Protein backbone atom coordinates (compact mmCIF):
# COMPACT_ATOMS: atom_id res chain seq x y z
CA UNK A 1 0.00 0.00 0.00
CA UNK A 2 1.07 3.59 -0.61
CA UNK A 3 -0.75 6.86 -1.03
CA UNK A 4 -0.55 9.21 -3.98
CA UNK A 5 -1.93 12.72 -4.29
CA UNK A 6 -1.63 15.16 -7.14
CA UNK A 7 -2.98 18.61 -7.90
CA UNK A 8 -2.75 20.43 -11.21
CA UNK A 9 -4.05 23.99 -11.11
CA UNK A 10 -5.83 25.51 -14.09
CA UNK A 11 -6.69 28.66 -12.13
CA UNK A 12 -3.54 30.73 -11.58
CA UNK A 13 -5.11 32.56 -8.64
CA UNK A 14 -4.95 29.30 -6.65
CA UNK A 15 -1.17 28.96 -7.02
CA UNK A 16 -0.32 30.45 -3.60
CA UNK A 17 -2.54 27.74 -2.02
CA UNK A 18 -0.92 24.78 -3.80
CA UNK A 19 1.34 23.78 -0.91
CA UNK A 20 -1.42 24.05 1.68
CA UNK A 21 -3.90 22.00 -0.38
CA UNK A 22 -1.32 19.31 -1.18
CA UNK A 23 -0.16 19.12 2.43
CA UNK A 24 -3.71 18.43 3.59
CA UNK A 25 -4.15 15.76 0.89
CA UNK A 26 -0.78 14.18 1.77
CA UNK A 27 -1.47 13.97 5.50
CA UNK A 28 -4.88 12.38 4.82
CA UNK A 29 -3.01 9.56 3.07
CA UNK A 30 -0.87 8.77 6.16
CA UNK A 31 -2.75 5.48 6.80
CA UNK A 32 -1.66 4.27 3.38
CA UNK A 33 2.01 5.13 3.89
CA UNK A 34 3.44 6.12 7.30
CA UNK A 35 7.09 5.20 6.49
CA UNK A 36 8.17 8.19 4.45
CA UNK A 37 6.72 10.99 2.40
CA UNK A 38 7.71 13.25 -0.41
CA UNK A 39 6.47 15.97 -2.66
CA UNK A 40 7.40 17.30 -6.09
CA UNK A 41 6.39 20.88 -6.62
CA UNK A 42 6.50 22.87 -9.84
CA UNK A 43 6.69 26.66 -9.96
CA UNK A 44 8.66 29.80 -9.23
CA UNK A 45 10.99 29.44 -12.18
CA UNK A 46 13.42 32.18 -13.19
CA UNK A 47 14.22 32.58 -16.92
CA UNK A 48 17.58 30.98 -17.87
CA UNK A 49 18.00 29.60 -14.37
CA UNK A 50 17.90 25.99 -13.28
CA UNK A 51 17.28 24.42 -9.89
CA UNK A 52 19.21 21.60 -8.31
CA UNK A 53 17.54 20.22 -5.19
CA UNK A 54 19.97 18.28 -2.99
CA UNK A 55 19.77 16.38 0.29
CA UNK A 56 22.24 15.72 3.06
CA UNK A 57 22.03 13.64 6.26
CA UNK A 58 24.35 16.23 7.87
CA UNK A 59 22.97 19.50 6.52
CA UNK A 60 24.56 21.66 9.22
CA UNK A 61 28.05 20.82 7.94
CA UNK A 62 27.36 20.01 4.29
CA UNK A 63 25.39 23.19 3.55
CA UNK A 64 27.74 25.43 5.53
CA UNK A 65 29.90 27.47 3.14
CA UNK A 66 28.50 25.44 0.23
CA UNK A 67 27.57 28.60 -1.65
CA UNK A 68 31.01 30.21 -1.45
CA UNK A 69 32.80 26.97 -2.33
CA UNK A 70 30.58 26.32 -5.34
CA UNK A 71 30.78 29.90 -6.61
CA UNK A 72 34.56 29.46 -6.89
CA UNK A 73 34.15 26.66 -9.42
CA UNK A 74 31.31 28.00 -11.55
CA UNK A 75 30.99 31.31 -13.29
CA UNK A 76 27.91 33.35 -12.57
CA UNK A 77 25.66 33.65 -9.58
CA UNK A 78 24.29 31.04 -7.28
CA UNK A 79 21.45 31.23 -4.80
CA UNK A 80 20.96 28.63 -2.12
CA UNK A 81 17.79 28.02 -0.10
CA UNK A 82 18.22 25.57 2.77
CA UNK A 83 15.09 23.79 3.94
CA UNK A 84 15.90 21.27 6.69
CA UNK A 85 17.86 18.39 5.09
CA UNK A 86 17.34 19.78 1.60
CA UNK A 87 18.78 22.73 -0.25
CA UNK A 88 17.70 24.23 -3.54
CA UNK A 89 20.58 25.63 -5.58
CA UNK A 90 19.56 28.12 -8.24
CA UNK A 91 22.15 28.38 -10.96
CA UNK A 92 22.34 29.69 -14.50
CA UNK A 93 21.05 26.83 -16.65
CA UNK A 94 24.30 26.54 -18.63
CA UNK A 95 26.31 26.06 -15.39
CA UNK A 96 24.30 23.06 -14.22
CA UNK A 97 26.59 20.24 -15.31
CA UNK A 98 29.64 22.07 -13.99
CA UNK A 99 27.93 22.55 -10.62
CA UNK A 100 26.96 18.89 -10.42
CA UNK A 101 30.52 17.77 -11.15
CA UNK A 102 31.89 20.20 -8.55
CA UNK A 103 29.37 19.01 -5.95
CA UNK A 104 30.52 15.41 -6.35
CA UNK A 105 34.04 16.32 -5.35
CA UNK A 106 33.45 18.97 -2.68
CA UNK A 107 30.41 17.30 -1.03
CA UNK A 108 30.52 13.58 -1.91
CA UNK A 109 27.75 12.71 0.57
CA UNK A 110 25.19 15.07 -0.91
CA UNK A 111 22.44 13.40 -2.91
CA UNK A 112 20.63 14.98 -5.82
CA UNK A 113 16.84 14.91 -5.42
CA UNK A 114 15.90 16.71 -8.61
CA UNK A 115 17.04 18.92 -11.43
CA UNK A 116 14.90 21.23 -13.51
CA UNK A 117 13.86 24.76 -14.23
CA UNK A 118 10.70 24.50 -12.24
CA UNK A 119 10.79 21.23 -10.24
CA UNK A 120 11.83 20.84 -6.60
CA UNK A 121 11.59 17.44 -4.84
CA UNK A 122 11.52 17.13 -1.06
CA UNK A 123 11.38 13.69 0.58
CA UNK A 124 12.33 12.12 3.86
CA UNK A 125 11.68 9.20 6.16
CA UNK A 126 8.96 9.81 8.75
CA UNK A 127 5.26 10.46 9.14
CA UNK A 128 3.82 12.62 6.36
CA UNK A 129 2.84 15.37 8.83
CA UNK A 130 6.42 15.54 10.14
CA UNK A 131 7.91 15.54 6.65
CA UNK A 132 5.46 18.27 5.60
CA UNK A 133 6.30 20.49 8.55
CA UNK A 134 10.07 19.89 8.23
CA UNK A 135 9.95 21.34 4.72
CA UNK A 136 7.20 23.86 5.43
CA UNK A 137 5.26 22.43 2.49
CA UNK A 138 2.09 24.30 3.33
CA UNK A 139 3.67 27.64 2.47
CA UNK A 140 4.91 26.57 -0.95
CA UNK A 141 3.29 27.93 -4.07
CA UNK A 142 3.32 26.54 -7.58
CA UNK A 143 1.35 25.49 -10.62
CA UNK A 144 1.16 21.75 -9.86
CA UNK A 145 2.54 19.16 -7.51
CA UNK A 146 2.59 15.45 -6.69
CA UNK A 147 2.91 13.86 -3.26
CA UNK A 148 3.50 10.33 -2.03
CA UNK A 149 3.20 8.50 1.29
CA UNK A 150 5.16 5.26 1.38
CA UNK A 151 4.53 1.88 2.96
CA UNK A 152 7.66 0.05 1.91
CA UNK A 153 7.37 -3.44 0.44
CA UNK A 154 10.24 -3.94 -1.99
CA UNK A 155 13.19 -2.20 -0.33
CA UNK A 156 14.39 -0.46 2.82
CA UNK A 157 12.85 2.65 4.36
CA UNK A 158 15.41 5.28 3.37
CA UNK A 159 15.39 8.78 1.93
CA UNK A 160 16.49 7.45 -1.44
CA UNK A 161 13.73 4.83 -1.36
CA UNK A 162 11.10 7.52 -0.81
CA UNK A 163 9.14 8.98 -3.71
CA UNK A 164 8.92 11.07 -5.92
CA UNK A 165 11.77 9.97 -8.16
CA UNK A 166 13.34 12.44 -10.55
CA UNK A 167 13.27 10.82 -14.00
CA UNK A 168 14.82 13.62 -16.07
CA UNK A 169 14.95 17.40 -16.23
CA UNK A 170 11.71 18.66 -14.64
CA UNK A 171 10.26 15.15 -14.59
CA UNK A 172 9.21 12.99 -11.69
CA UNK A 173 7.33 9.80 -10.95
CA UNK A 174 5.51 8.32 -7.97
CA UNK A 175 4.22 4.77 -7.67
CA UNK A 176 1.67 2.78 -5.75
CA UNK A 177 2.17 -0.95 -6.22
CA UNK A 178 5.06 -3.32 -6.63
CA UNK A 179 7.01 -4.30 -9.71
CA UNK A 180 7.91 -7.98 -9.97
CA UNK A 181 10.48 -7.79 -12.79
CA UNK A 182 12.55 -4.95 -11.33
CA UNK A 183 15.66 -7.06 -10.76
CA UNK A 184 15.96 -8.26 -14.35
CA UNK A 185 15.03 -4.83 -15.70
CA UNK A 186 17.62 -3.16 -13.42
CA UNK A 187 20.33 -5.47 -14.79
CA UNK A 188 19.27 -4.71 -18.37
CA UNK A 189 19.18 -0.94 -17.80
CA UNK A 190 22.55 -0.98 -16.00
CA UNK A 191 24.08 -2.83 -18.97
CA UNK A 192 22.81 0.04 -21.09
CA UNK A 193 24.64 2.48 -18.84
CA UNK A 194 21.64 3.73 -16.83
CA UNK A 195 22.58 4.78 -13.29
CA UNK A 196 20.33 3.11 -10.69
CA UNK A 197 21.25 3.73 -7.10
CA UNK A 198 19.03 1.55 -4.89
CA UNK A 199 17.33 -1.86 -4.76
CA UNK A 200 13.98 -0.07 -4.97
CA UNK A 201 11.48 -1.24 -7.59
CA UNK A 202 10.07 2.21 -8.31
CA UNK A 203 13.51 3.62 -9.02
CA UNK A 204 13.74 1.02 -11.79
CA UNK A 205 10.34 2.13 -13.11
CA UNK A 206 11.51 5.75 -13.07
CA UNK A 207 14.83 4.84 -14.70
CA UNK A 208 12.94 2.88 -17.35
CA UNK A 209 10.81 5.91 -18.24
CA UNK A 210 13.91 8.13 -18.37
CA UNK A 211 15.73 5.59 -20.55
CA UNK A 212 12.79 5.31 -22.96
CA UNK A 213 12.72 9.08 -23.34
CA UNK A 214 16.48 9.15 -23.96
CA UNK A 215 15.79 6.66 -26.78
CA UNK A 216 13.45 9.21 -28.33
CA UNK A 217 10.06 8.36 -26.84
CA UNK A 218 7.76 11.10 -25.63
CA UNK A 219 6.61 10.79 -22.03
CA UNK A 220 3.24 9.49 -23.26
CA UNK A 221 4.98 6.84 -25.40
CA UNK A 222 7.25 5.87 -22.51
CA UNK A 223 4.21 5.35 -20.29
CA UNK A 224 2.47 3.35 -23.04
CA UNK A 225 5.46 1.04 -23.38
CA UNK A 226 5.71 0.67 -19.59
CA UNK A 227 2.43 -1.24 -19.86
CA UNK A 228 4.28 -3.82 -21.97
CA UNK A 229 7.67 -3.92 -20.25
CA UNK A 230 6.86 -3.58 -16.57
CA UNK A 231 5.41 -6.59 -14.79
CA UNK A 232 3.54 -6.12 -11.54
CA UNK A 233 1.07 -3.73 -10.03
CA UNK A 234 1.29 -0.02 -10.55
CA UNK A 235 -0.56 3.20 -10.50
CA UNK A 236 1.96 5.81 -11.67
CA UNK A 237 1.53 9.54 -11.47
CA UNK A 238 4.15 11.52 -13.39
CA UNK A 239 4.94 15.21 -13.41
CA UNK A 240 6.46 17.35 -16.15
CA UNK A 241 7.24 21.05 -16.32
CA UNK A 242 3.82 21.91 -17.69
CA UNK A 243 1.65 18.95 -16.89
CA UNK A 244 0.94 15.72 -15.12
CA UNK A 245 -0.11 12.25 -16.18
CA UNK A 246 -1.61 9.07 -14.77
CA UNK A 247 -1.35 5.44 -15.85
CA UNK A 248 -2.57 2.24 -14.18
CA UNK A 249 -1.57 -1.33 -15.04
CA UNK A 250 -4.15 -3.49 -16.88
CA UNK A 251 -5.30 -5.24 -13.67
CA UNK A 252 -5.76 -1.87 -11.93
CA UNK A 253 -6.06 -3.17 -8.39
CA UNK A 254 -4.19 -0.17 -6.98
CA UNK A 255 -6.82 2.46 -6.30
CA UNK A 256 -7.13 5.83 -8.02
CA UNK A 257 -9.73 8.59 -7.99
CA UNK A 258 -9.67 11.75 -10.07
CA UNK A 259 -11.60 15.00 -9.77
CA UNK A 260 -11.80 17.84 -12.25
CA UNK A 261 -13.32 21.31 -11.97
CA UNK A 262 -12.82 24.57 -13.90
CA UNK A 263 -10.05 25.35 -11.41
CA UNK A 264 -8.04 22.13 -11.09
CA UNK A 265 -7.46 18.45 -11.82
CA UNK A 266 -6.77 16.37 -8.72
CA UNK A 267 -5.61 12.81 -8.11
CA UNK A 268 -5.97 10.76 -4.93
CA UNK A 269 -5.44 7.12 -4.03
CA UNK A 270 -8.73 7.52 -2.22
CA UNK A 271 -11.60 9.98 -2.33
CA UNK A 272 -10.76 10.92 1.28
CA UNK A 273 -7.71 12.79 -0.02
CA UNK A 274 -9.89 15.04 -2.18
CA UNK A 275 -12.73 15.95 0.19
CA UNK A 276 -11.32 19.29 1.35
CA UNK A 277 -10.58 20.68 -2.13
CA UNK A 278 -12.59 23.76 -3.09
CA UNK A 279 -15.96 22.98 -4.75
CA UNK A 280 -15.30 19.24 -4.64
CA UNK A 281 -19.05 18.65 -4.38
CA UNK A 282 -19.42 20.05 -7.93
CA UNK A 283 -16.37 18.29 -9.40
CA UNK A 284 -16.51 15.59 -12.05
CA UNK A 285 -15.20 12.56 -10.17
CA UNK A 286 -14.14 9.33 -11.81
CA UNK A 287 -11.84 6.35 -11.59
CA UNK A 288 -9.14 6.28 -14.29
CA UNK A 289 -9.45 3.30 -16.65
CA UNK A 290 -6.87 0.50 -16.59
CA UNK A 291 -4.03 0.53 -19.16
CA UNK A 292 -4.94 4.05 -20.26
CA UNK A 293 -2.60 7.03 -20.26
CA UNK A 294 -4.12 10.30 -19.06
CA UNK A 295 -2.36 13.62 -19.41
CA UNK A 296 -3.11 17.25 -18.56
CA UNK A 297 -1.03 20.20 -19.76
CA UNK A 298 -1.00 23.93 -19.16
Amino acid at each position, binding site marked *: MCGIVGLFLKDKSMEPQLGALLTDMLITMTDRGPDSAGIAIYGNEVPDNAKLTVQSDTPETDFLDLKSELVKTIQGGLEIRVQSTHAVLEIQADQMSKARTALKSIRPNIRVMSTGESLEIYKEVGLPKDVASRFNLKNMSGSHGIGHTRMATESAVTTMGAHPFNTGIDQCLVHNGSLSNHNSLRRKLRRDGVHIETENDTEVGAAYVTWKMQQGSSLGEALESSLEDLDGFFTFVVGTKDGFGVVRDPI*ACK*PAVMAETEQYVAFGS*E*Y*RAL*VNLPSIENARIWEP*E*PATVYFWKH
Partner: protein
Amino acid sequence: MQNYDLANGSLRELNATLHAQNHNTNQTVWEIENPKGAHAIACGLDAPIEVTVKGSTGYYSAGMNQQATVNITGSAGPGVAENMMSGKVVIDGDASQYAGATGHGGLLVIKGNASSRCGISMKGINIVVHGSIGHMSAFMGQSGNLVVCGDAGDALGDSCYEARLFVRGSVKSLGADCEQKEMRTEHLEILKALLAESESDAKPEEFKRYGSARNLYNFNIDNAY
Protein backbone atom coordinates in the same frame (compact mmCIF):
# COMPACT_ATOMS: atom_id res chain seq x y z
CA MET B 1 -35.23 9.75 12.58
CA GLN B 2 -31.78 9.36 14.15
CA ASN B 3 -28.97 11.54 12.89
CA TYR B 4 -25.23 10.98 13.25
CA ASP B 5 -22.70 13.54 12.07
CA LEU B 6 -19.27 12.03 11.43
CA ALA B 7 -17.78 15.53 11.54
CA ASN B 8 -18.43 15.49 15.30
CA GLY B 9 -18.40 11.79 16.19
CA SER B 10 -16.23 8.76 15.59
CA LEU B 11 -16.74 6.04 13.03
CA ARG B 12 -16.28 3.38 15.69
CA GLU B 13 -19.04 4.90 17.84
CA LEU B 14 -21.35 5.15 14.82
CA ASN B 15 -20.87 1.51 13.87
CA ALA B 16 -21.20 0.33 17.49
CA THR B 17 -24.46 2.29 17.78
CA LEU B 18 -25.80 0.73 14.59
CA HIS B 19 -24.68 -2.75 15.71
CA ALA B 20 -26.58 -2.28 18.96
CA GLN B 21 -29.91 -2.13 17.06
CA ASN B 22 -31.80 -5.42 17.09
CA HIS B 23 -34.78 -6.74 15.14
CA ASN B 24 -37.36 -4.92 17.26
CA THR B 25 -35.61 -1.56 17.58
CA ASN B 26 -37.74 1.55 17.45
CA GLN B 27 -34.89 3.55 15.92
CA THR B 28 -35.42 2.30 12.39
CA VAL B 29 -34.34 5.29 10.30
CA TRP B 30 -30.80 6.69 10.41
CA GLU B 31 -29.08 9.46 8.56
CA ILE B 32 -25.29 9.78 8.51
CA GLU B 33 -23.71 13.08 7.56
CA ASN B 34 -20.19 14.01 6.48
CA PRO B 35 -18.92 10.56 5.47
CA LYS B 36 -16.09 12.28 3.51
CA GLY B 37 -14.80 9.03 2.05
CA ALA B 38 -14.26 7.30 5.41
CA HIS B 39 -13.83 3.51 5.44
CA ALA B 40 -16.20 0.82 6.74
CA ILE B 41 -19.24 3.08 7.25
CA ALA B 42 -22.35 1.10 8.23
CA CYS B 43 -20.44 -2.16 8.07
CA GLY B 44 -21.71 -5.35 9.70
CA LEU B 45 -25.32 -4.24 10.28
CA ASP B 46 -27.80 -6.92 11.36
CA ALA B 47 -31.20 -5.30 11.95
CA PRO B 48 -34.11 -4.20 9.74
CA ILE B 49 -33.13 -0.53 9.78
CA GLU B 50 -32.80 2.08 7.02
CA VAL B 51 -29.52 3.97 6.90
CA THR B 52 -28.88 6.88 4.52
CA VAL B 53 -25.27 7.98 4.12
CA LYS B 54 -25.32 11.54 2.78
CA GLY B 55 -22.23 11.75 0.59
CA SER B 56 -19.44 9.50 -0.68
CA THR B 57 -17.78 6.65 1.20
CA GLY B 58 -14.36 4.95 1.15
CA TYR B 59 -13.46 1.27 1.39
CA TYR B 60 -15.89 -1.45 2.47
CA SER B 61 -19.02 0.54 3.24
CA ALA B 62 -22.10 -1.56 4.10
CA GLY B 63 -19.98 -4.72 4.10
CA MET B 64 -21.39 -7.97 5.51
CA ASN B 65 -24.86 -6.41 5.60
CA GLN B 66 -27.80 -8.41 6.94
CA GLN B 67 -31.40 -7.16 6.90
CA ALA B 68 -30.58 -3.45 6.72
CA THR B 69 -31.26 -1.09 3.83
CA VAL B 70 -28.32 1.23 3.23
CA ASN B 71 -28.46 4.12 0.75
CA ILE B 72 -25.28 5.98 -0.17
CA THR B 73 -26.23 9.23 -1.87
CA GLY B 74 -22.77 9.81 -3.37
CA SER B 75 -20.27 7.28 -4.72
CA ALA B 76 -18.75 4.30 -2.93
CA GLY B 77 -15.11 3.24 -2.69
CA PRO B 78 -13.69 -0.26 -3.16
CA GLY B 79 -15.52 -3.29 -1.76
CA VAL B 80 -18.95 -1.77 -1.12
CA ALA B 81 -21.47 -4.35 0.19
CA GLU B 82 -18.75 -6.97 0.21
CA ASN B 83 -20.04 -10.31 1.51
CA MET B 84 -23.61 -9.03 1.90
CA MET B 85 -25.92 -11.71 3.33
CA SER B 86 -29.34 -10.04 2.99
CA GLY B 87 -30.97 -6.61 2.88
CA LYS B 88 -30.44 -3.93 0.28
CA VAL B 89 -27.66 -1.48 -0.54
CA VAL B 90 -28.33 1.34 -3.02
CA ILE B 91 -25.60 3.64 -4.33
CA ASP B 92 -26.83 6.74 -6.12
CA GLY B 93 -23.42 7.44 -7.72
CA ASP B 94 -20.64 5.15 -8.93
CA ALA B 95 -18.98 2.21 -7.19
CA SER B 96 -15.27 1.42 -7.24
CA GLN B 97 -13.74 -2.02 -7.70
CA TYR B 98 -15.11 -5.32 -6.35
CA ALA B 99 -18.58 -4.04 -5.46
CA GLY B 100 -20.69 -6.82 -3.97
CA ALA B 101 -17.75 -9.25 -3.91
CA THR B 102 -18.52 -12.69 -2.43
CA GLY B 103 -22.08 -11.59 -1.55
CA HIS B 104 -24.37 -14.41 -0.41
CA GLY B 105 -27.73 -12.62 -0.65
CA GLY B 106 -29.62 -9.37 -0.73
CA LEU B 107 -29.74 -6.75 -3.47
CA LEU B 108 -27.02 -4.27 -4.42
CA VAL B 109 -28.13 -1.44 -6.73
CA ILE B 110 -25.55 0.87 -8.31
CA LYS B 111 -27.24 3.74 -10.12
CA GLY B 112 -24.03 4.96 -11.76
CA ASN B 113 -21.18 2.78 -13.06
CA ALA B 114 -19.20 0.10 -11.28
CA SER B 115 -15.51 -0.40 -12.00
CA SER B 116 -13.51 -3.64 -12.21
CA ARG B 117 -14.33 -6.95 -10.54
CA CYS B 118 -17.97 -6.12 -9.78
CA GLY B 119 -19.58 -9.21 -8.22
CA ILE B 120 -16.33 -11.16 -8.08
CA SER B 121 -16.98 -14.59 -6.53
CA MET B 122 -20.66 -13.73 -6.00
CA LYS B 123 -22.44 -16.48 -4.08
CA GLY B 124 -26.13 -15.62 -4.32
CA ILE B 125 -26.31 -11.83 -4.19
CA ASN B 126 -28.31 -9.91 -6.80
CA ILE B 127 -26.53 -6.90 -8.29
CA VAL B 128 -28.16 -4.37 -10.62
CA VAL B 129 -25.93 -1.71 -12.21
CA HIS B 130 -27.77 1.05 -14.07
CA GLY B 131 -24.58 2.10 -15.88
CA SER B 132 -21.59 0.02 -17.05
CA ILE B 133 -19.12 -2.29 -15.31
CA GLY B 134 -15.36 -2.77 -15.63
CA HIS B 135 -13.14 -5.76 -16.39
CA MET B 136 -13.14 -9.17 -14.67
CA SER B 137 -16.66 -8.76 -13.32
CA ALA B 138 -18.38 -11.85 -11.87
CA PHE B 139 -15.03 -13.70 -11.93
CA MET B 140 -15.70 -17.13 -10.39
CA GLY B 141 -19.32 -16.11 -9.73
CA GLN B 142 -21.09 -19.05 -8.12
CA SER B 143 -24.73 -18.03 -7.93
CA GLY B 144 -26.98 -14.99 -7.96
CA ASN B 145 -27.74 -12.50 -10.73
CA LEU B 146 -25.64 -9.66 -12.12
CA VAL B 147 -27.72 -7.24 -14.23
CA VAL B 148 -25.89 -4.55 -16.23
CA CYS B 149 -27.99 -1.94 -18.02
CA GLY B 150 -24.92 -0.48 -19.79
CA ASP B 151 -21.82 -2.25 -21.10
CA ALA B 152 -19.45 -4.81 -19.59
CA GLY B 153 -15.63 -4.60 -19.73
CA ASP B 154 -13.08 -7.30 -20.57
CA ALA B 155 -13.25 -10.90 -19.35
CA LEU B 156 -16.83 -10.94 -18.13
CA GLY B 157 -17.69 -14.04 -16.11
CA ASP B 158 -14.24 -15.60 -16.27
CA SER B 159 -14.26 -19.10 -14.71
CA CYS B 160 -17.78 -18.58 -13.44
CA TYR B 161 -19.93 -21.34 -12.01
CA GLU B 162 -23.70 -20.78 -11.97
CA ALA B 163 -24.09 -17.01 -11.57
CA ARG B 164 -26.47 -15.54 -14.19
CA LEU B 165 -25.11 -12.50 -16.01
CA PHE B 166 -27.46 -10.18 -17.92
CA VAL B 167 -26.03 -7.35 -20.03
CA ARG B 168 -28.06 -4.87 -22.05
CA GLY B 169 -25.17 -3.18 -23.91
CA SER B 170 -21.95 -4.53 -25.36
CA VAL B 171 -19.54 -6.96 -23.73
CA LYS B 172 -15.93 -6.07 -24.49
CA SER B 173 -14.85 -9.70 -24.10
CA LEU B 174 -15.99 -12.84 -22.35
CA GLY B 175 -13.69 -14.53 -19.85
CA ALA B 176 -12.58 -18.15 -19.97
CA ASP B 177 -15.51 -20.59 -20.11
CA CYS B 178 -18.16 -17.85 -20.25
CA GLU B 179 -20.63 -17.91 -23.12
CA GLN B 180 -23.84 -16.28 -24.26
CA LYS B 181 -26.84 -18.37 -23.34
CA GLU B 182 -30.44 -18.67 -24.33
CA MET B 183 -32.85 -16.21 -22.64
CA ARG B 184 -35.86 -18.21 -21.44
CA THR B 185 -39.13 -17.05 -19.87
CA GLU B 186 -37.87 -17.75 -16.36
CA HIS B 187 -34.90 -15.44 -16.97
CA LEU B 188 -37.13 -12.64 -18.28
CA GLU B 189 -39.15 -12.95 -15.10
CA ILE B 190 -36.07 -12.75 -12.88
CA LEU B 191 -34.96 -9.67 -14.83
CA LYS B 192 -38.37 -8.01 -14.68
CA ALA B 193 -38.49 -8.35 -10.90
CA LEU B 194 -34.90 -7.15 -10.34
CA LEU B 195 -35.29 -4.16 -12.69
CA ALA B 196 -38.50 -3.12 -10.98
CA GLU B 197 -37.02 -3.46 -7.51
CA SER B 198 -33.98 -1.42 -8.49
CA GLU B 199 -36.03 1.33 -10.20
CA SER B 200 -34.57 0.82 -13.65
CA ASP B 201 -36.74 1.49 -16.68
CA ALA B 202 -34.78 -0.94 -18.88
CA LYS B 203 -36.83 -3.69 -20.55
CA PRO B 204 -36.01 -7.36 -19.88
CA GLU B 205 -36.16 -8.13 -23.64
CA GLU B 206 -33.23 -5.76 -24.28
CA PHE B 207 -30.76 -7.95 -22.35
CA LYS B 208 -28.60 -10.89 -23.31
CA ARG B 209 -27.77 -13.65 -20.88
CA TYR B 210 -24.28 -15.04 -20.24
CA GLY B 211 -23.09 -17.83 -18.02
CA SER B 212 -20.78 -20.78 -17.59
CA ALA B 213 -20.10 -23.10 -20.54
CA ARG B 214 -19.30 -25.66 -17.80
CA ASN B 215 -16.13 -26.81 -19.52
CA LEU B 216 -13.96 -26.07 -16.49
CA TYR B 217 -16.07 -28.14 -14.10
CA ASN B 218 -14.07 -31.30 -14.66
CA PHE B 219 -10.40 -31.79 -15.25
CA ASN B 220 -9.57 -31.76 -18.91
CA ILE B 221 -6.00 -32.27 -20.06
CA ASP B 222 -6.58 -29.80 -22.92
CA ASN B 223 -7.04 -27.03 -20.36
CA ALA B 224 -3.66 -27.67 -18.75
CA TYR B 225 -0.58 -25.72 -19.74
